[in-house]
């Protein structure tokens, strides 16, 4: 990831998401979006560190006595081998946490066409929310849709614009049920996004609604 690129991020995670990630209470699909954005954004990393400090301060308050012998059995289990050295992840177009779900970088994504040149790849996460990669050809649009729950969209390549603003690599759009939008990819390049939602999308026109069970979103 390049420094100059980090500077261009304008749309960040909400405090609620960063707190949930610090506390460890988000659905897996949201954790994946948060971890991927954090991989590209130093600002949000700093905010996350502050929320983790709240966790540390709360931990300091809540003690329950251990039974006797606990320390001795812990001491008996201490590793005497040298620790594994930390290896930085190899650079790639996809952030490292996402690569572990894809099983590689962009060329390893197993796309399935959903019509109009738009492709998607559903990622394996817990059922509490779903995550998928979206490929939107340059200049193309994702059908107009609203949301029942919360939808997070992180741009990984290219850029898209909708009724609210324009989003480039690293930007994350947080949409709730009040937003009805039609994301359109920039004309210059194909757009790849990571999207996660905790409820099925609700399309406003009939045909996408009929397709919904087929798209599994």
């Amino acid at each position, binding site marked *: 990831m390049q420094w100059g690129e980090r500077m261009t991020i304008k749309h960040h995670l909400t405090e609620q998401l960063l707190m949930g990630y610090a506390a460890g209470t988000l659905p897996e699909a949201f954790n994946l979006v948060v971890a991927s954005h954090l991989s590209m954004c130093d600002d949000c990393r700093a905010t996350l560190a502050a929320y983790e400090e709240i966790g540390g301060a709360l931990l300091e308050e809540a003690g329950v006595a*251990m039974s006797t012998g606990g320390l001795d059995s812990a001491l008996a289990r201490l590793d005497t081998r040298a620790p594994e050295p930390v290896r930085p992840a190899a650079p790639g177009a996809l952030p490292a946490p996402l690569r572990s779900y894809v099983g590689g970088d962009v060329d390893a994504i197993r796309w399935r066409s959903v019509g109009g040149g738009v492709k998607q790849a559903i990622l394996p996460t817990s059922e509490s929310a779903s995550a998928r990669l979206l490929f939107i050809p340059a200049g193309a649009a994702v059908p107009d849709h609203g949301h029942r729950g919360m939808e997070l969209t992180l741009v990984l390549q290219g850029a898209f614009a909708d009724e609210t603003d324009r989003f480039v690599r690293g930007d994350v759009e947080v949409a709730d049920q009040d937003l009805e939008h039609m994301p359109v990819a920039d004309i210059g390049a194909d757009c790849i996004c990571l999207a996660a939602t905790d409820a099925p999308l609700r399309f406003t026109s009939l045909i996408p609604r009929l397709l919904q069970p087929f798209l599994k979103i």
Partner: protein
Amino acid sequence: MTETPPEETEKAILISDMLRVRDQRDRAAFARLFGHFAPRVKGFLIRAGSDPAVAEDCAQDVMVTVWNKAHLYDPARASVATWVFTIARNRRIDLARRDRRPEPEDLGWGPEPETAQEDGLVLQQESDRLGVALKGLPEAQRELIEKCYFGDLSHREIADVTGLPLGTIKSRIRLALDKLRHAMG
């Protein structure tokens, strides 16, 4: 010369014990950290819904992980309590076997050689102020923040438990966070 308040001395000892574990694999220092943190981790897991016997075993696991991952501890990035909290949180997530929590790219708490122990003390002081600010919150706000961290509850689940509407929960948490930020100046 002014005397160092006892609490600050205690925090400085936690940092130096953690560094002894990291750099010298010092078992006596580990035993002191265990004495301080194991009961707190146990309490954390009980409040997160574990039964006491499971919490006891897991608190041991967490402390063993503190030893095994000590090379990743960086006093300039997190207070010792926060470092232990992140390990306890991850253990709690494993226990729940529901939602995995991938880590960001190379966030890894890799120590930066140029950062000295003094940086750690500054951070520790700030985190102490945070602790004081948390204690000073009105009961209702404080309880909700605690539920977010200990209770393994989403905002919606908290609403179900407390019978408060979701909007109220969100605004209370926001208010509490604003107060905390203000206290941190």
